[in-house]
């Protein structure tokens, strides 16, 4: 099923700190990213690239039309299994939810080893419509009424047999066209020539 991107505006990150005085030495371990939407649309999921965030995301979910919306947490604690090591530090994450109206990203990184942390390439999406079904050629779905075949000379092959064989061949070609493989063909040269320049650096 396809995903349709929902336009959104990602505000800058705000670090949370205790007390009033901003200290440049202490690095904050909690960041908040606010995401606003120009038009109110319920969306079904977010996708982003992690950058050294260990845990967090909170969303506001409408469970049904009548109950007031409540804040729920999703994706807590599973971005980086060990906050001091690189595992999961730059992974792409996809999070499916149901009917979200507002989004607050609360990111936590308790380890002091990292200089900064955030999430990148944040995208919000809705489930799009299902892909359209294949259009059959008109003559397949609306066959012509049967006509009485004219009597043919005896040397010619039986028309019904020929038509069934042609149908099979058509089905085969459709199958072959649909199933392209990823197998390689073995040539390393270009038309038999492998006379090279130097290796290129790009």
């Amino acid at each position, binding site marked *: 099923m396809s995903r349709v991107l929902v336009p959104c505006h990602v505000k800058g990150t705000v670090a949370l700190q205790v007390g009033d005085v901003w200290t440049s030495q202490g690095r904050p371990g909690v960041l908040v990213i606010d995401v606003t939407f120009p038009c109110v649309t319920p969306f079904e999921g977010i*996708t982003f*690239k992690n*950058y*050294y965030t260990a845990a967090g995301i909170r969303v506001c979910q409408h469970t049904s039309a009548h109950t007031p919306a409540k804040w729920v947490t999703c994706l807590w604690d599973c971005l980086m*299994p*060990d906050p*001091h*090591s*690189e*595992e999961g*530090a*730059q*992974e*792409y*994450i*996809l999070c*499916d939810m149901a009917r979200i109206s507002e989004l607050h990203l609360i990111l936590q990184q308790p380890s*002091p*080893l*990292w*200089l*900064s*942390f955030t999430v990148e*390439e944040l*995208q919000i999406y809705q489930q799009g419509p299902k892909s359209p079904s294949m259009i059959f050629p008109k003559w397949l779905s609306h066959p012509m009424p049967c006509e009485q075949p004219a009597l043919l000379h005896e040397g010619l092959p039986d028309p019904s047999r020929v038509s069934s064989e042609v149908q099979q061949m058509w089905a085969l070609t459709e199958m072959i066209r649909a*199933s392209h*493989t*990823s*197998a*390689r063909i*073995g*040539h*390393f*040269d*270009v038309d038999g*020539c*492998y*006379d*090279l*320049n*130097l*290796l*290129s*650096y*790009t």
Partner: protein
Amino acid sequence: MLQEESDLSLIIAQIVQKLKGSNLYSQLERQAWASLQRPEIKLESLKEDIKEFFKISGWEKKLQNAVYSELSVFPLPSHPAAPPEHLKEPLVYMRKAQGSWEKRILKSLNSMCTELSIPLARKRPVGEQKELLNKWNEMGTDEPDLSLFRPVYAPKDFLEVLINLRNPNYENGDSLSFRTHLGLIQVPLKVKDIPELKECFVELGLNIGQLGIDDSTQVPPELFENEHVRIGQKVLSEQDSAAAQQYIRQGSPTALRAELWALILNISSQPEDVLYYEQLKTNVIQHDLLVDSLIYKDVKLTASNDDYYFVFEDYLYQVLLCFSRDTSVLSHFAFNSASPPKSYIRGKLGLEEYAVFYPPNGVIPFHGFSMYVAPLCFLYHEPSKLYQIFREMYVRFFFRLHSISSHPSGIVSLCLLFETLLQTYLPQLFYHLREIGAQPLRISFKWMVRAFSGYLATDQLLLLWDRILGYNSLEILAVLAAAVFAFRAVNLMEVTSLAAAEAVLADLSTLKVMPLLQIFLFATVT
């Protein structure tokens, strides 16, 4: 859960796509067609009957083995937004480091090319082709002048690159603090500790029989060895890859090893495979590559000088020269952080239709590369089978030993695992060696990069490689390296220089691998 289901269907689709291009697919089709003649196949229950036929005739098992092989080799499908580089290596700074390392290698190769005025590739004249064909089985007798060639790089050059690897987002303060790594590797990858390793390598435990320990002459064979051999024969008759992989964790009997490895790697020598090898041989005959001279030089410098492997010199040329021409190896770059070097046909610089990879398989050999092939020569004597086994071992394991990546079996993780194990469980030794300027990794790096080939006695090496196949991981190399240090700790505590430490660890040929691993993992007081 919906996410898992869609992941599963994605994995299935990926495997089906891969298998569609394989021999097995066309063979299964042919078998299905042929089975229609059989009386038990009825039209009403065609699908079920054919499935049943496959099960009975062993074709289902072959398909299972192929699927298992794909699952072992290919990483899981990733996030739809992830670019292909992410599958090669998720951490951006490691990709960059691998890119600059590759650039250095290419510059070195290019400068060798211009200095010696030798083309990267050259079509052989017909006379030379005939000559090479005649002496194909004795290329070792050739003594070309290789004095001007030098290996593109050696493991110690690669070690320097790894030592300088830094994460820009990591606190690399100058002052020593809890975050400084005391070893040479300074990147904070996740590595297992001994409790986790014990869980992972549970079949190496003290109460489980092992070949390499419980088949020694003092132990009566009725206790373990006979039964183990019997089970091995049964596994081979069932032709089940997954069972073979589980079985080989306790070691493989010498007589069954060649077949077991072929089963685990899912190699069955079909006529098409022999034909493919012959095609590669033709490519070698037709074109001469600069890389060939590097291979010659490497074999002459390493394997030919080794007491165990010099007899296989001719086999090594036959395998490695063909390996360089094999474009099917290019597919492993999808999950290798390295990329194949590119070049253009002379006069067509920049035109994409004339872009080619050099060498055709994208792998530039380094000093010691031929040692990956040498131990396999003890098991396989038919060149095309030996070739297939080596190629599969390379694209499953060996490529990780010379490319920069964050994979748990990658060389960076292995180095960090080795250093962490040593620091945690032999802190006095580690401190002492560090103080005398003999960082342990400087000594053990060359062992791990070569997967201990050329350092251990061959029977011990094969027992070690049994476990690499059984656990589908190279972490055992780091554990063995730490175990070797633990074994010689008493002598190492007395040395006062790097050279002396090297001398203590110069000769590993008398070591018994399995007792060392068992003691280090399961019998050391932690």
